[in-house]
């Protein structure tokens, strides 16, 4: 995935920190430098929007085509897990925002605390996601690797009002699950990258970085983390919620 691109951030951010005056030779002022890297980060996030855009397009098209299959597929999502994960991510976004605030107000302890909390929440999210994936594996809902349409050709006990899908439509639940794994997988990959960078950040913060007024890197990472949160904010209703009733 974009790990290559994102993994570069530490290196790049690092650069801004090696030089003692923090100012790169080609920038006139620190403000200019900060604005530039902020702007650069936003442009990078634009590319991320388009990156997910392709997958969202696919999702919308196939949802239109194989509506019953998408409904049936999403009925196998665990809404409690999705809700929990949404909450976890929102909390982590909040702690991340607070981390940035702590860096701004130069409080090293608070910064460390909030970063660790964010890291922890990130792991919780990934854990829950892994649990869900494991379940889907056990239920034979992984297209291409381990898939069976059995669950969809029979009435789902939790949704007794549902009708079983005809076999041809049941096959199409693979489209749903393909996109489900694709979207959540790419999202989780972003989380993974985020978590790795967080580890690095915590290490640096522990050594005293970011609380001396030079916090561009942590700010930019915050943008990244919130962005990943936003993606999930859309994935959650699309994959778990909107078909709860049909």
């Amino acid at each position, binding site marked *: *995935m*974009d790990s*290559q*691109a994102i993994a*570069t951030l530490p*290196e*790049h951010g690092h*650069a801004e920190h090696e030089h003692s005056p923090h100012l*790169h*030779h*080609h*920038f*006139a002022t620190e403000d*200019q430098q900060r*604005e*530039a*890297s902020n*702007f*650069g980060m936003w*442009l*990078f996030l*634009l*590319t*991320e*929007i*388009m*990156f*997910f*855009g*392709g*997958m969202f*397009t*696919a999702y919308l*098209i*196939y949802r239109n*085509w*194989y509506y019953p299959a998408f409904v049936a597929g999403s009925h196998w999502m665990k809404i409690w897990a999705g809700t929990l994960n949404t909450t976890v991510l929102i909390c982590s976004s909040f702690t991340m925002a607070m981390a940035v605030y702590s860096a701004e107000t130069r409080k090293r302890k608070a910064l460390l605390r909030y970063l660790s909390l964010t890291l922890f929440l990130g792991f919780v999210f990934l854990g829950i996601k892994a649990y869900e994936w494991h379940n889907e594996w056990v239920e034979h809902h992984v*297209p*291409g*690797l381990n898939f069976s349409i059995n669950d969809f050709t029979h009435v789902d006990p939790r949704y007794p009002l549902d009708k079983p899908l005809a076999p041809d439509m049941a*096959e*199409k639940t*693979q*489209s749903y699950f*393909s*996109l489900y*794994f*694709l979207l959540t997988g790419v999202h989780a990959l972003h989380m993974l990258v985020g978590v790795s960078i967080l580890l690095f950040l915590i290490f640096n913060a522990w050594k005293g970085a970011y609380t001396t007024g030079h916090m561009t890197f942590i700010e930019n990472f915050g943008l990244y983390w919130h962005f990943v949160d936003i993606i999930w904010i859309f994935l959650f209703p699309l994959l778990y919620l909107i078909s709860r009733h049909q």
Partner: protein
Amino acid sequence: MSTIISLPDQSTATLPKRSYLNSEYGLKSWLLTLDHKRIGILYLIVTLFFFCIGGTMAALIRLNLLTPGGELVAADTYNKLFSIHGIIMVFFFLVPIAPAVLGNFLIPLMIGAKDVAFPRLNLLSWYLFVTGGCFELYAIIWGGMDTGWTFTTPLSTHYVNTHVVSAALGIFVAGFSSILTGVNFIVTIHRLRAPGMTWFRMPLFIWSYYATSILFVLATPVIAITLVLIVLERVIGIGVFDPAKGGDPLLFQHLFWFYSHPAVYVMILPGMGVISEVVACFSRKRVFGYTAVAFSSVAIAVFSFFVWAHHMFIMGISNYSALVFSLMTMLVAVPSAIKIFNWSSTMYKGSITFDTPMLYSFSFIGLFTIGGMTGVMLASLGMDIHLTETYFVVAHFHYVMVGGMVSAVMAGLHFWWPKITGRMYPEPLGRLAAAILFIGFNLTFFPQFIVGYLGMPRRYHSYPPEFQVLNVLSTAGASVLAIGYLLPAVYLLWSMKYGKIAGANPWQAPGLEWQVQSPPLTENFPEPPVVDFEAYDFEWLANHTKSEVQTVG
């Protein structure tokens, strides 16, 4: 008031003692450099290497098509040849060469910055590009891929067993290099302009690179995800594009062309930037209608996002969609027309000289107009039915890409060669090469329009015998072309050591990059320049030189 340094004129010029080329020595100083100029040169080396590969493939393609039976190579070898040719030429030569080489070298110099905004990211882009290139070389050496450069599904996902995965990953990785380059340029142009360098004082070159960067940032991610889907489909068999699993292969086309149409403008906009500079300099005139040209660059970039399905007119998209996309394609052609006319009128009442870059610009203007107008033919729905997937399309895109963009790259390379190396190329040979290229080009690709209208399909290893005459002409032209490319390769290399010393401003051009020594210092400007003149301000330049002479005298 102006802090721009002016060096002695050409006749007495010597090579400056200190420059970005000799500030450090050794391979390591190049491979770890953060200097945008050196990174530009690194890109130049790699892209030219890929051009040789792509060119060799083209030579083999043309040789094979000498006879209708295609006796030279087997059918699947031929398919690999054009696939490699297309993939290499597009993703590893033409998309990177102009932005990454000329853009890297010139953008900071032109806007009066010391470097691009993120030098480390810039170096990383180069490494990503090289990594992507290695994937591609791996795929080529271990057997190649035969999907065409368009990776049409379900062919590429289920029906060929060549190295599609590594080829796709190579493009994926190289794509990130494009994205990062785009991000870097946009931030640089927004944030690092020298004091006084307002948007409308920027050279048009910068405008067109700005537009290109927008395309990089917004379009490239879409092909990245599309290639990921292709790889997943091959490796684990998810069915997003597979009709047998309820997927839609046309969705692939949509996503692919959402990138690849804007990508064709990535392959022309930088060239347009070069032409603006060259035409202005050798007419000694401000570009006619600066604002119109600047805005048409941006307009092309914006509109190019709305036209992608013109590559799918006969593929079963809805007819209503086809109408909309055809209409948008007509609209996107207008800004190009504006530019062509503005450049031509720039010459009006100019004071024109025919140096090599100018000759290449002429060939750009002529060939791009023909290529563009045939593009309009393709955009016309009913006409496209007959023309699509024939050699007419092949001729169209070679006219715009080779006749247009490669000419522009040649123009740019010659124009800034003295700035890059500090030495002049041999002018007579340069003019000769430009003429050979022009003739060879037309001989190669004009017959393809005819054979295309006759109906000869593209990507054919063998063809009906009545098309042979035209194909032989085309092959003959390709040999002329090969000479036309090898000649500059030889004399440019020669000139690096033996060329005349150029001096800071051999063309007496007004751009900021010409006001510093050549080759420039690592830090470009000893002190930050202050810009108090418009772009292409030849009167300013004249006054400036006069006062310089007076003070010296």
